[in-house]
């Protein structure tokens, strides 16, 4: 009886935590939708029709659902990358670059490895190899920034931005040069198609949603488990919340900073890798239309919690995916979606606005996203 009562209150506590944490993001979304509706009306559109189009386009049919999941896949991976870094007290703005590095690495393994070896590989070896290589390179790329932070104090915000330039321009150089698809009809900066043995198959025939989406959900659970149930996660969170106490507790803070960046980069690399192996079957320059930057918004909206990231990734995916239908129905430009997303982020980041509008009192400590320069 006593036990039951306790577990009951524990469930209550967990529900309370969820509602406490999701209240502000939920209201931010609501507010952004209302503001978006006002803007649609202001420019002469019909907000109800526009939002109906958005929902139909993202959830209205099997195909729409499949496409939403396709969009959500890189969002989940990249969102987890940024969220994990936040948990470790680091602001990884470099997901976009790490994603490109991962995509380059896995596409290379995907199309070139059989050529080098001179024979075809079975999928059970080729696919994992392509994915792992992409993950590894994304991780290494980000680990450089972690190392700079740990040993020189160079701030990760600056360094990830700089590394983005290096990664994206190097990618452009490679895709226009040695890695370019040499088929005579091709004028685009892209690699050749990867071998069949390096492709992630779709889940259903005729739909584009592939097993990479399931992997994204599993990885999200895995990251939650890592952060909350393992000693490594304990160390990452401790360094993120209080690096002084972490040092006092005997944690090797420098090592954890590098490890956190590496893990974050691996997740971002995975986002690029899965797009190559599961969707496009090649690396085409510019395939990532800012996944790495949207990931920051997704991580913020999801409060850096893996479940929150999955939900926010779905929201962003649905908005992107439904935008076309919305445009078709109401002639509202797709860019409107970017505006609404920007409003959501604004209301989440400046949560005082939301708290003021809805008269919510602040509870608990503020989430620390990143520490001061050189900190």
């Amino acid at each position, binding site marked *: 009886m006593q036990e039951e009562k306790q577990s009951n209150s524990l469930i209550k506590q967990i529900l309370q935590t969820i509602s406490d944490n999701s209240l502000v993001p939920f209201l931010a979304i609501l507010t952004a939708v209302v503001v978006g509706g006002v803007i649609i009306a202001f420019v002469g559109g019909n907000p109800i029709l526009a939002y109906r189009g958005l929902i139909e386009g993202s959830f209205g049919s099997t195909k729409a659902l499949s496409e939403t999941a396709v969009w959500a896949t890189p969002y989940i991976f990249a969102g987890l990358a940024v969220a994990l870094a936040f948990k470790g007290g680091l602001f990884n703005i470099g997901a976009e670059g790490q994603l490109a590095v991962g995509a380059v690495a896995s596409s290379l393994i995907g199309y070139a490895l059989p050529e080098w070896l001179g024979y075809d590989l079975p999928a059970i070896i080729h696919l994992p190899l392509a994915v792992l290589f992409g993950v590894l390179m994304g991780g290494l790329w980000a680990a450089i920034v972690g190392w700079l932070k740990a040993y020189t104090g160079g701030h990760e915000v600056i360094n990830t931005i700089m590394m983005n330039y290096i990664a994206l321009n190097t990618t452009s150089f490679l895709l226009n040069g040695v890695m370019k698809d040499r088929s005579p009809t091709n004028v685009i900066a892209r690699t050749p198609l990867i071998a069949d043995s390096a492709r992630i198959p779709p889940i259903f025939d005729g739909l584009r949603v592939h097993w990479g989406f399931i992997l994204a959900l599993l990885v999200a659970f895995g990251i939650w488990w890592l952060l909350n149930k393992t*000693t490594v996660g304990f160390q990452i969170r401790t360094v993120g919340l209080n690096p002084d106490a972490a040092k006092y507790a005997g944690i090797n803070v420098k090592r954890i900073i590098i490890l956190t960046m590496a893990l974050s980069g691996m997740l971002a690399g995975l986002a690029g890798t899965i797009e190559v192996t599961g969707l496009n079957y090649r690396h085409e320059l510019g395939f990532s239309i800012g996944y790495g930057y949207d990931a920051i918004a997704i991580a913020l909206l999801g409060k850096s919690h893996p479940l929150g990231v999955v939900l926010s990734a779905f929201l962003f995916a649905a908005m992107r995916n439904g935008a076309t239908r919305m445009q078709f129905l109401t002639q509202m430009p797709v860019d409107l979606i970017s505006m609404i997303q920007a409003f959501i982020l604004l209301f989440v980041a400046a949560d005082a606005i939301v708290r003021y509008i809805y008269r919510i009192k602040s509870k608990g*400590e503020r989430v620390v996203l990143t520490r001061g320069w050189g900190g």
Partner: protein
Amino acid sequence: MTEANIVLEAKNITKQFPGVLASDNVNFDLRKGEIHALLGENGAGKSTLMNLIYGLHLPDKGEIFVNGKPIEIKSPNDSIAAGIGMVHQHFMLIPVFTVAENVMLGDEVTKRGSLDRVTVAAKINEISKQYGLDVDPNALVGDLPVGLQQRVEIVKTLYRNAEIVILDEPTAVLTPQEAEDLFRIMRDLTARGVSIIFITHKLKEVLAVADRITVMRAGRVINTVQPSETNEAQLANMMVGRQVILTVEKKDHAASGDILKVEGLSARDQRDLETVHNVSFTVRGGEVLGIAGVQGNGQTELSEALTGLRAPTGGKVTMDGIDLTGKSPRVMTEAGLAHIPEDRQRHGLVLSYSVADNMALCDYYRPPFSSRGVIQQKALDENARKLIDAFDVRTPSPFVNAGKLSGGNQQKVIVARELSRHNVKLVIANQPTRGLDVGSIEYIHSEIIKMRDRGVAVLLISAELDEVMALSDRIAVMYRGQIVAVVDSKKATREQLGLWMAGAHVETTQA
């Protein structure tokens, strides 16, 4: 005394903070030319009351009268205009400015667009002479010792024509001799008609200097008494609300062999200045070595260098024969160090972690707390329940965030974690009771003595001389980064220790 003599009166002041009634219908008055001490533990509401009078907070209810007239104080500007000045515990001075520049800050006197240092300096000299403050207006504040910096703060209030001066814990940073000087200045000020509110938690000082004493507890005024009709024990009872044992029960105890051996240790601070010079001492098993000294004489860097938080720049540290010089905190913990850090919120706890997680903060990676890299939450919770019981931590449950506990209970979480470790040979406790309530202080003292009686070596670093004298078997005095004296605590006197703390030269005597 007639009503006319009352210069400041606070009537029925109530202030509610989220979760705390910080000021509960408080009445307080100050007569012209008196020193009125406001006594209470941390969190009793002394600072809140003063912040309300000074205009840093607005009261929910109640009125404030200055010279019999009701005034509305909405910001410090209003209180300054009404003749109220405040010297905060942490000085509000800019070290790279001169005394004159600091004094006129916010109220600058200019002459044809540039600062008129001459006029200000003249006025400071006049104030300084009048009240016997002995402050040089042209000195750089950063070059002045703490006692003089405090006088600059007092000059600042007098320069703004304050007739009521609030001193918030002014003796916390002073040696006993400097405190005596301050008391003399306070009496000079009152002799010239200035009225002083003296906030403190130190009983001896109150009895020595105050004309009246008001004791606060839990946001309420308990009583107002004359020093002549009370004593330390009675004041302590009023402060805490129950009988308090003022002395630490300590039996004689034979010390065993050397546990901690420090030879020629040096360390630098953040600014890369050497703040610990060539320090050597030993701590034996079963004894408490207390390090006395005014704050900022290298104690922080010394304790950090001994606990792995700071790399020493020279010297050697061994524990029970094992060389631990410059080793990481993990290595030290595993060798048998228990560390109660100076800043409990910065180093000792992760405030947004649960009590249970904090109680395993240093041992999370070891069985039974983890197995193959996976945290065993059950073991953490069980450990926490045990320690909460054993160390009397007042918390609703082990799952509450450490940040939600009172300071005393936060410290108990740390003490429980550190002293319960299976292998403790040495305890380094830096300011273990700073800012705590009397009950928690008693408890933590008794735990430290328990460790000593079990044969553990204890290094106690504290700026509270009374604490060092009560707990230590031997006392070392630290001044400007050096150990200037080591004495048997039974032979030590407050006066002698105070002189050493102020830098009086002595032959180092090994006791």
